[in-house]
């Protein structure tokens, strides 16, 4: 989940805070201090996160586009000037543009807004924005909710009492509400000082930036892993089951399936599965990601030389063209596979299916998948030349079962022409002729379209009179018979108009041999 840090650089951020020792701090210093802490945390524990830095006052500016280079972000923090008044709405519009340009509308983003809770004055102030919120049209839509899945974290360089003394807190809460409740407001506990800012940012880190550690298991083969980005809780049905589901920290492989059989399944999200080395206390000592830091490098080199199940699994999945099905929770599954970033680089990835007993119709119910050794014979064949997948649904779909649709005249005309074409090739086409005839008969009966039956009967009778001299004598018999049967059906009386009843070819002296030819 990429992060956009939106930093308030209006004049009010330069307000001094009560003196701590000899140095005098401004609120912007506290903000920079908190952000430094966040960036440092990310650089060590969350280094694959893309972060952008936006500053705003009455205007906004993208200081650092999305990057994983936390040094650049850190440097930008110390190069910020002071500007005029706070104008939050335009900054949020800016965030919309930046995120959509970079990531589109489907990737969840976290927006960290750092402000002092002074929401500006006059036009462009948050109060003004909220007051005019109901009068917006398409052209000047309020930027919230963000047009992408999002969390809005508001970091206030102020304590609760200060915010409550005005209506600032209410306005900020409105913002979170407008973002469909996605987000949270953080305020400083106690006096404004470095220590309390740290603890506030610590809470944000705990909430949004703690790495997700898990144990990947395949029977007795295990590996400690970090899953990046963190899998987000998922609500299956807001009404029946409103509690968000969270994935297990034990990721248990239950079996394997060929890539061709799983065939590009829909997934909620996908994640890198990075093997990590843990020390005795369970702290991460290396993700194996190469770093400039020398100490870490040597630790990583040692970790690199210890056999790791992830590497074995990844190698075999890649070579065999398979995926591992992994259990993420009760009735929740996902898949592990090798994902190539380039010709040389590839990685172990995990995609999460939607929770539920049957996330992929073509695999059937997950609980019903079992080991091939339990089957009477290997469903993949002795030479690995077949597959038990995909499962066939009980009912065929309309496009696969020759349904009759006459909404447009062309549909009806095509069906009638088919009968006529076959009628002219009697007795060779006897079977097809009656098959098409019965299909039309059934549909006409269901739709109560009895006039059609009469019409087609008339048509067949006419065809009978038009038969050339060279025609097979059976043709005339069959046409007359068919016409007669249709006429009877068109009376609608139950005796002849039974839906299940089929018109069968007339048994003639000639028909014995001719029908068999079909």
């Amino acid at each position: 989940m990429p992060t956009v840090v939106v930093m308030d650089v209006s004049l009010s951020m330069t307000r001094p805070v009560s003196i701590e020792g000899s140095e005098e701090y401004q609120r912007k210093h506290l903000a920079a201090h908190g952000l430094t802490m966040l960036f440092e945390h990310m650089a060590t524990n969350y280094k694959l996160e893309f972060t952008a830095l936006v500053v705003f006052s009455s205007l906004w500016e993208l200081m650092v586009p999305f990057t994983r280079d936390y040094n650049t972000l850190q440097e930008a923090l110390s190069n910020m000037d002071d500007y005029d008044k706070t104008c939050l709405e335009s900054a949020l519009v800016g965030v919309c543009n930046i995120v959509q340009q970079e990531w589109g509308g489907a990737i969840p983003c976290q927006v960290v807004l750092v402000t002092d809770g002074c929401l500006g004055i006059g036009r462009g102030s948050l109060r003004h924005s909220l007051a005019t919120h109901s009068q917006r049209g398409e052209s000047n839509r309020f930027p919230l909710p963000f047009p992408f899945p999002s969390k809005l974290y508001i970091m206030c360089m102020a304590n609760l009492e200060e915010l409550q003394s005005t209506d600032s807190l209410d306005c900020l809460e409105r913002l979170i509400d407008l973002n469909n409740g996605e987000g949270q407001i953080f305020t400083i506990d106690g006096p404004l000082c470095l220590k309390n800012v740290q603890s506030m940012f610590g809470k944000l880190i705990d909430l949004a930036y703690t790495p997700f550690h898990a144990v990947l298991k395949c029977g007795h083969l295990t590996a400690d892993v970090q899953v990046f980005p963190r899998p987000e809780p998922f609500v299956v049905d807001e009404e029946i089951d409103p509690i968000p589901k969270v994935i297990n920290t034990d990721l248990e492989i239950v079996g394997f399936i060929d890539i061709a059989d799983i065939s590009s399944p829909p997934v909620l999200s996908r994640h890198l599965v990075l093997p990590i080395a843990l020390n005795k206390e369970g702290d991460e000592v290396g993700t194996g990601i190469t770093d400039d830091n020398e100490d870490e490098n040597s630790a990583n080199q040692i970790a690199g030389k210890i056999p790791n199940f992830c590497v074995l699994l990844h190698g075999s999945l890649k070579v065999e063209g398979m995926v591992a099905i992994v259990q993420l929770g009760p009735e929740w599954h996902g898949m592990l596979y090798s994902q190539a970033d380039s010709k040389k680089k590839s990685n172990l990835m995990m995609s999460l299916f939607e929770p539920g007993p049957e996330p992929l119709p073509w695999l059937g119910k997950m609980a019903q998948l079992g080991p091939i050794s339990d089957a009477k014979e290997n469903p993949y064949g002795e030479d690995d030349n077949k597959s038990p997948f995909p499962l066939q649904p009980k009912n065929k779909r309309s496009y696969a079962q020759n349904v009759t649709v006459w909404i447009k005249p062309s549909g009806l005309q095509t069906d009638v022409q088919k009968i006529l074409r076959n009628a002219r090739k009697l007795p060779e086409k006897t079977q097809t002729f009656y098959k098409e005839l019965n299909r039309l008969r059934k549909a006409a009966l269901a739709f109560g379209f009895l006039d059609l039956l009469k019409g087609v009967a008339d048509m067949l009778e006419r065809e009978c009179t038009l038969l050339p001299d060279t025609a097979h004598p059976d043709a005339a018999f069959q046409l007359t018979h068919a016409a007669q049967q249709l006429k009877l059906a068109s009376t609608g009386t139950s005796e002849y108009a039974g839906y299940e009843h089929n018109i069968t070819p007339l048994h003639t002296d000639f028909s014995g041999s001719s029908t068999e030819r079909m």
Partner: protein
Amino acid sequence: MKIFSESHKTVFVVDHCPYMAESCRQHVEFDMLVKNRTQGIIPLAPISKSLWTCSVESSMEYCRIMYDIFPFKKLVNFIVSDSGAHVLNSWTQEDQNLQELMAALAAVGPPNPRADPECCSILHGLVAAVETLCKITEYQHEARTLLMENAERVGNRGRIICITNAKSDSHVRMLEDCVQETIHEHNKLAANSDHLMQIQKCELVLIHTYAVGEDSLVSDRPKKEEEQHANTSANYDVELLHHKDAHVDFLKSGDTHIGGSSREGSFKETITLKWCTPRTNNIELHYCTGAYRISPVDVNSRPSSCLTNFLLNGRSVLLEQPRKSGSKVISHMLSSHGGEIFLHVLSSSRSILEDPPSISEGCGGRVTDYRITDFGEFMRENRLTPFLDPRYKIDGSLEIPLERAKDQLEKHTRYWPMIISQTTIFNMQAVVPLASVIVKESLTEEDVLNCQKTIYNLVDMERKNDPLPISTVGTRGKGPKRDEQYRIMWNELETLVRAHINNSEKHQRVLECLMACRSKPPEEEERKKRGRKREDKEDKSEKAVKDYEQEKSWQDSERLKGILERGKEELAEAEIIKDSPDSPEPPNKKPLVEMDETPPIEKSKGPVSLLSLWSNRINTANSRKHQEFAGRLNSVNNRAELYQHLKEENGMETTENGKASRQ
């Protein structure tokens, strides 16, 4: 998302009164082919559908599309109304298909134009519709049972689509009032019933049907909110219907800028996607964020059936979406799975996982001798297959196939060294017959026989002094001698078999055979060998199983530890432990290295084993009785290098071991 929204239950109420038998006054030419013939035949007069036929056709088309796109959890109940209500099907999933409905409609037949219109009313049908909406569906029942005390969370909403001929505005209001009143009454009834549910919300769609002029459409099919048109085009267009979420990204993107207010019906109805050259194959795993079933608008048209047949034959079609900027991006894929066609939504935005660290740079990334091929074989053996018929365990409880799959993985991995240099037996073709069956839950007599044969074969190899593929990684010189190699091999094989002895009595027999056959050098020889430094890797390979066995025999070893701490009968106790198959490791297998005063760090992690307590005690006692070896005194980490003078002669030569060919 809500499963039990209005679209869970749809009731069609179609008017079957005499009026509906009237012609819609639109002619259908059906005698087309005759025009090609020049015999001067006059084509048959066109016919026209009745209002009833039009209504039934439209509602069937609605059902066709719905069953295609939402085959589950969206149900239809069909009611025909004349002098009474005829309910043609139920909410059960078996009743939800076109064939059933068509057969039931045929049984009803067209309205009788000579019936008394006064006796007929659409109200019968509407009342029945409300009644049927109160009836619980299988899905609702299942959800309520599952939720137990939270059963009230299961919603009951529905939609009534009524096709009739309304006489006036007041007639329409009368119908609306009637439905409302009936809901009110039935909700009272439902409140006291287990099989009925109160209606929380009901959407009433009234479709006014009447005959018009010569050429305009009679009845309008209501468009479902979920449906949305997509359009593929090359030389011709095929219009497809599918869930609107398939375009959620497009709708949110700046291209249309509809944003959050798309529900007000302002959403773009048709999105045109272009067919691109199908260069995809099913071996490729696309990043797909959604897959939705489709239904062609004009199912039997040539372009539609051409596309659907192409897809049903197993091909896939990639679709690209033109962007505002003029560029194109592949955004969707059409593909069939088991006779159902899905529109897959492919992610077309920048990946947040781009440029990740390669797996070779991470933990375990520098190890080069993983048993990739063997694990591939393991994965193929542990592939999954559906078991649709329920199976039962011996105790009568339902067996869950997926749990069986997990059990199998547990068994197959009890002893599974990850790298080639950690194992000897898995590098030997001769061991395969045993290794492949010993992991099974149960063995046949033939399996046991094969295992025994394998063991005899190994004995034979040892007798002939055949070389073994022992790894020399990390060792100097030629590596262990031949007899030592066999000892390592036998130990590893024992480890493998021991991991499975609790599976069955036949597994036990394999172990017995192994123990009887494996080489047991005379006591003297054995003692000498124990002094030799053991291979590092052997320790590792045994550790894997030790971990497993330690778990299993935890209680045993705890009990034994108790015995030792309390008892003084050293020798007698040691004998008992030696014979116990569950003890972490037989004492005769312990290398002398571990008998040193400072036990390896590894040991200090877990509980102190009986053996090391015993060894420490003996060592302390013995050390007082003799002078220390010079080698041990000069050792580094208690390890002294032997035969140092040979090093110059042999250099760092590494020997054949059958490994190289495996990589």
